[in-house]
């Protein structure tokens, strides 16, 4: 799952149009939303669509677990590694 982290970081930078950011600028354990990277709710939707497209993972928006999956690059990478369909 650690192998996925750089890929997830690149996906986030590209999808969220984070100008002037490099993958190594993102702390894999930092929160993605609000504090930390500072993404917002629209980014969450955008990221969900991008991950679905790239890895075929489906998110259940009502699930309580989703907050944990989206907590950080590390959590997201672990979730994708376990649930990816492509």
């Amino acid at each position, binding site marked *: 799952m650690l192998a996925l982290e750089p890929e997830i970081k690149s996906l986030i930078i590209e999808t969220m149009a984070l100008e002037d950011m490099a993958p190594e600028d993102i702390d894999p354990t930092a929160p993605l939303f609000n504090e930390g990277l500072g993404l917002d709710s629209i980014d969450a939707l*955008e990221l969900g669509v991008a991950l679905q497209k790239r890895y075929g993972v489906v998110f259940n928006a009502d699930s309580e677990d989703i907050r944990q999956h989206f907590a950080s690059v590390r959590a997201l990478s672990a979730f994708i590694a376990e649930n990816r369909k492509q």
Partner: protein
Amino acid sequence: MGNQVPPLTELAPMQRRRLDQAGRMALQVAWWTQPEAEPAVPQVFASRHGDVGRTYRMLEQLAAEGEVSPTQFGLSTHNAIAAQYSIARQFTGNYSAVSAGSATAEAAVVEAQGLLADGAPAVLLVMYDVPLGADYAPFDREPQAAYAWSVRVQRAAAGETAICLHATCAAKTPSGQDSPPRLPHGLEVLRFLLGDQPGLSHQSGQTLWRWQRQATRA
């Protein structure tokens, strides 16, 4: 400002990242005209085509992939740029987003006049446009350019030169009488506002708009 993407350093990178050229230009001139927060001053954002390139890209994506980007969708309304400005500046007052074909600049002034009549001390008017993409070329009716300008509209004080705008109902002039315009109409209006020509006429559909410079009594 024309044909460039301004740095818009007033805006935090996380807010700036979602704005295209049109949005960055519009917000940049608005900020320059209004460097300090003025909660009592409403804003009128006017653009004939707005962020139409974004809408087109979204439609392309929908046709190709069957889904749209939530970010693009969230910014696809005509007032999205005005909304970004109000969020960035934390203004909770009145703003409007105007589009009125070839008379968009005139409609913006009418809107501003309404706000002044309603008690606003001044109105921030932002006029902007970017060229239509090649796919919309058949609809080009005026010269295309990327531009944005902003002015503060308020009542002329005694002794000041006032700008007057009149609209009359008028049939279209026979074609060939007017020389074709060299600038987008929004820039013709800006040239009139900044220059010293006494008037500017503009036919839009069945309406003839007349801008005039008039002295007021001291």
